[in-house]
């Protein structure tokens, strides 16, 4: 039932523009690969571990080929030849390369590899692992009592995975349904994934496979005690976006922050690099049934939430189409938005509600990710609690899906154990008090809320049309999103992008795509 009476033709037109925008980028994506995509493929072949200098073997191997051979043929070209001729497994091959006992450049001038089937048994081991994780998660979610209120999501960010676990357990016992481990500041710019359990991070904890495993194990235990499945979130973003997506699939993370636009704008990651990386990550996440979270909310931390609301909606439309290109089911598209209008603005709550209801109506099947106030939070924690309460009311009333709880100490520090508990109490109270409020109310068809939604949608259509005309790359150069301009040849990670050789092959991506198409066909 529509409460806002949005113009369906305008929504349809927005989707057509967004589809065209995504198509332009997809043509570029399909012709290219990156060092991080190739490293992910190695991980999916079972290559793990580090060399004597602490460098991950997947980096050693890809760098080896990048320097000595021709990476444009793809890692599978070299691995398939080496496995076939040397009768070694991918990990053994990688270890030998790291000890300078093997040089894969001898396969550079060989014809297109006829030995891809030699990779199958190794890929199958990881696919089996991912499949088991999918079915385990599906069963656990089925066993979890259903709630029709937004899922309460809190972050832990101590820098030490063992402390994070204590905080996560405490939050889960207090009613949290989703736990995100925030990454150490700066990890998005590392061109490798750190290794092992880590205890030193700043503003967060490093995303590593071992940290994923430790936290997942702890949350599985608390899930059993609480008799409801607690979801785990991390960040498949930054320069190692696809590798972290792979690790998340293997270690059963349930959600991943995954948004190229965020990396381009806020981390100055090269746009070519991260669009290619994002496609591989999203196909992989689609296959692994991992919900992605997009980062539109961040635009509003630098540009004004009232004036630039249309950039958020435009980006949601574009992210939806990028996800569709990756064959992602709508139930996995956690499109982002946020409660960031200045408390100084009269009727700010009405404008927030308009934006939230609008997102809900336009993306009815998406698990929308709703972010709390951050920009206008201050050291006044008491006022902050009230700001969070209004945000919670908007979240419950407009039936958001992934409800990032605001912390009253947002402007002060990464949350203390008690900050999180206070937030959970706040949200639980409001979710109970306002449970069916959204179903009880309708909006004045000539009122502020309906008009605001209509205006934002109209402005979004205009913006999307402009982006389609300019193209995505030029739009980013113009600084349309968050008022920050980025260049196609600027930013970090461009040297890891390459055009695919005509003999390039990526059988694991082909497998995921084939499976997803078959699954959709069955539906």
């Amino acid at each position, binding site marked *: 039932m529509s409460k806002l009476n949005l113009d369906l033709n305008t929504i349809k037109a927005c989707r057509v523009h967004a589809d065209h925008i995504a198509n332009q980028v997809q043509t570029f994506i399909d012709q290219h690969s990156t060092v991080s995509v190739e490293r992910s493929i190695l991980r999916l072949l079972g290559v793990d571990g580090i060399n004597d200098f602490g460098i991950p073997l997947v980096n050693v191997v890809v760098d080896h080929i990048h320097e000595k051979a021709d990476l444009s043929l793809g890692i599978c070209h070299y691995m398939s030849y080496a496995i076939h001729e040397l009768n070694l497994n991918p990990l053994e091959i990688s270890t030998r390369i790291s000890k300078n006992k093997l040089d894969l450049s001898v396969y550079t001038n060989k014809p297109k590899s006829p030995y891809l089937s030699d990779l199958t048994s190794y890929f199958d081991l990881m696919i089996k692992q991912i499949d088991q994780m999918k079915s385990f998660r599906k069963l656990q979610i089925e066993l979890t009592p259903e709630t029709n209120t937004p899922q309460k999501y809190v972050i832990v960010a101590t820098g030490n995975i063992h402390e994070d676990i204590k905080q996560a357990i405490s939050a889960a016992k207090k009613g949290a349904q989703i736990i995100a481990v925030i990454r150490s500041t700066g990890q998005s710019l590392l061109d490798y994934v750190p290794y092992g359990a880590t205890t030193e991070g700043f503003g967060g904890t490093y995303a590593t496979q071992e940290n994923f495993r430790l936290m997942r194990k702890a949350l599985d235990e608390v899930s059993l005690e609480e008799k409801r499945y607690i979801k785990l979130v991390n960040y498949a973003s930054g320069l190692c976006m696809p590798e972290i997506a792979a690790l998340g699939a293997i270690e059963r993370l349930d959600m991943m922050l995954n948004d190229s636009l965020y990396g381009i704008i*806020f981390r100055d990651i090269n746009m070519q690099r991260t669009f290619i990386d994002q496609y591989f990550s999203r196909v992989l996440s689609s296959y692994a049934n991992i919900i992605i979270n997009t980062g539109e909310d961040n635009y509003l931390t*630098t540009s004004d939430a009232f004036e630039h609301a249309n950039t958020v909606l435009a980006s949601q439309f574009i992210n939806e189409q990028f996800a569709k290109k990756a064959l992602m089911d709508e139930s996995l598209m956690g499109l982002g938005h946020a409660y960031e209008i200045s408390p100084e603005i009269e009727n700010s709550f009405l404008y927030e509600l308009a934006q939230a209801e609008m997102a809900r109506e336009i993306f009815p099947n998406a698990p929308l990710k709703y972010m709390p106030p951050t920009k206008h939070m201050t050291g006044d924690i008491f006022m902050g609690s009230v700001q969070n309460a209004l945000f919670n009311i908007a979240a419950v009333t407009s039936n958001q899906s992934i409800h990032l709880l605001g912390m009253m100490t947002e402007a002060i520090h990464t949350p203390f154990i008690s900050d999180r508990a206070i937030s959970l109490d706040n949200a639980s109270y409001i979710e109970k008090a306002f449970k069916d409020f959204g179903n009880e109310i309708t909006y004045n068809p000539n009122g502020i809320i309906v008009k605001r939604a209509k205006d934002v949608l109209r402005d979004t259509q205009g913006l999307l049309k402009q982006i389609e005309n300019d193209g995505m790359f030029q739009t980013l150069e113009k600084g349309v999103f968050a008022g920050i301009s980025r260049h196609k040849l600027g930013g970090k990670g461009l040297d890891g992008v390459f055009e695919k050789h005509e003999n390039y092959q990526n059988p694991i991506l082909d497998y995921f795509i084939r499976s997803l198409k078959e699954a959709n066909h069955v539906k």
Partner: protein
Amino acid sequence: MSNKLELIRPYGDTLNDGKIQLSFSLPLPCNALGEEAAKNMAKKMGIHNAAVVHSAPLGEHFSFYVVYGTVEHQINIKDLNVVEVKSKTMNKEEVEAYIKDHFDQPLVFIGASTGTDAHTVGIDAIMNMKGYNGNYGLERYKGINAINLGGSVDNETLLEKAIEYKADVILISQTVTQKDIHIQNLTRFIELLEAENLRDQFIVIIGGARINHGLAKELGYDAGFGLKKYAFDVASFAVLALNEKKLKRKQLK
């Protein structure tokens, strides 16, 4: 002022009644022992008649307390020493006029959030056109060329750019302060300036929610600005300091 007023205690509803509230968590289950521990903690802080008015479990092994009581300590305000930016504050138009009157060329302000800190909220609030809370940023000031390098900028890169653009003022924002990472980072920048013998070439200012002028002076910066400081505060200090340091001052004809 009488002695009585120079010695102060917190105020609840009667002068110097010493009433205080605090809240904290303990790594103990929420039970009578936890509550006693909370009271004891308050007592050691000099709080008499501590009352635990609220306690709640945070999972099995942690608990949360809200405590009210009467603090025994008093402060003699005569003993206090506050380090503040002392120069006068001008509004945007006054700063612009001051620049016009005192300098020949536009002043170059270069800014960044440095080290691993990717948060640009602070530097954007000061530098970007829009500014913050209705106070325009430096980009909009006549006579100022504002260059915002954004977040995660290395100290080395910042200095390189400052030289390249012939900057007069360097602004550094620090948002992430967990485990004092900002202190190390800010110290390194000053060391870098000194190693290159360039400290006197620039006015160097730091900012951030956890930054204050006292900290800035201690670390060797010209000034530090914390919460509720805007572009005009920073610009006022910078133009006056530049004039005083005789940097880029108008040549008398």
